[in-house]
């Protein structure tokens, strides 16, 4: 990997991933690196990484049916607030005794200051933000 140190730190990230569980570890690496570059403290990094992981896991679970599926992750850092958006093409599943997803949403709500789960015409969008110390 080439590391270019004198580039300005991106205030935004925008990424698309295939909807498969093995991308989760890559997402955590990208997210942690981006948060560290903004001097976000370890407690905030752990909380945001957890919330992001749960939202992405949910997007991956939506990926039923034939054909390749993908989802988007966007992150912005502005005025000490990190906002993440995870966008997929499915519906948030909390029914049918799906304990993991129920617990996943619980994790997101407990670690982020603001959480908004929106049904869009094409799927589900979760927007979540947390004020961070730096």
């Amino acid at each position: 990997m080439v590391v270019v140190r004198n580039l300005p730190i991106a205030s935004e990230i925008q990424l698309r991933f295939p909807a498969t569980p093995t991308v989760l570890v890559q997402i955590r690496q990208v997210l942690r690196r981006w948060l560290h570059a903004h001097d976000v403290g370890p407690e905030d990094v752990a909380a945001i990484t957890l919330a992001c992981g749960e939202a992405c896991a949910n997007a991956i679970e939506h990926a039923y049916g034939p054909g390749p599926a993908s989802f988007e992750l966007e992150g912005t850092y502005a005025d000490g607030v990190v906002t993440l958006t995870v966008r997929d093409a499915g519906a948030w599943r909390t029914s049918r005794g799906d304990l993991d997803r129920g617990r996943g949403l619980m994790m997101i709500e407990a670690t982020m200051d603001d959480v908004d789960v929106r049904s869009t015409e094409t799927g589900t969008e979760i927007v979540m933000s947390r004020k961070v110390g730096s």
Partner: protein
Amino acid sequence: MTGPIADVHFERAGAVVVAHVQGEIDMSNAEYLGTAFSEVPPDARAVILDLREVGYLDSAGLRMIYTLRNRLDHRGQRLRLVVAPGAAITEALRIAGVPQAIGAVETVDAALDSLET
């Protein structure tokens, strides 16, 4: 990614099995890690799940822990967790009520002591 993002190795301390987990636990490997515990012999009195080297754990990992607890309960075996103070996974465990439901200490020795009684 090449290679597993977490692994577990087992150690015997008398009648107690100590499972040292290292890495990160998410939906890509939680179920697989859970199956490793079928190696716990029926004559073991308890399992100590050492999570000090676990850097990430989400709801899939929490399900693995609760499934393990239930399976051990069923066989009359106890479970103790070891979590490093201030670890990144502390928050996930706290939100899911793990410290109250299962009990977590900071060292394997403390876990062994708690099983003496």
